[in-house]
């Protein structure tokens, strides 16, 4: 799963620690989510969506699956 977290965070000039504090997770968790190494739980995804004022699907989305063409 990919996400726009890094862009949204940068738009607000927040550090990863700032964002982590706002949603109650560590800086390492934010790093892992931003790099796509860790997919957040639904409650955390909704918290992030509420924080940025956008629907969850505008922030998190599945990677396009290639058709083989």
């Amino acid at each position, binding site marked *: 799963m990919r996400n726009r977290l890094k862009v949204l965070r940068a738009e607000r000039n927040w550090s990863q620690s700032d964002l982590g504090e706002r949603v109650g*997770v*560590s800086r*390492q*968790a934010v790093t*892992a*989510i931003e790099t796509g190494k*860790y997919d957040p739980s639904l409650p*955390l995804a909704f*918290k992030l969506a509420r924080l940025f004022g956008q629907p969850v699907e505008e922030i998190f989305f599945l990677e396009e699956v290639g058709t083989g063409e």
Partner: protein
Amino acid sequence: MTSSTPSQSRRGWVTPAVGAIWILLYFGARALLEKPPGEFGTAARVVVALAPIPAFAAFLWLLIRGVRSADEFERRIHLEALAVAYPLAILLLMTLGLLQRAIELKFEDWSYAHVWIYLPLFYFLGLALARRRYA
């Protein structure tokens, strides 16, 4: 989903300190129990042997409390560490069990009294692998 608060950060030294006390008591007890049985009675030896247990129980309780208060990402790290450590522990014990049936393993090297130390080492290995994966 919680992050470490300032008060939690201030308490961050408690778990390592209790762990250090447990290790000191453990090696102290081992050193005392190396002395000949005649130097102090059986009851005293049992007390010495059990002396590290309260500190270890406190250490374990603090660890469990730490995992419970960790955020979901940190709990994932600990889960993956256990997923590495537990099979490795089974593998070690099974291998030693089979080898013991095949050949005579030295009690001083391979009894449960010495092998247990590998179990936390496997856990720390699992922690390192999990942290590296998500770094």
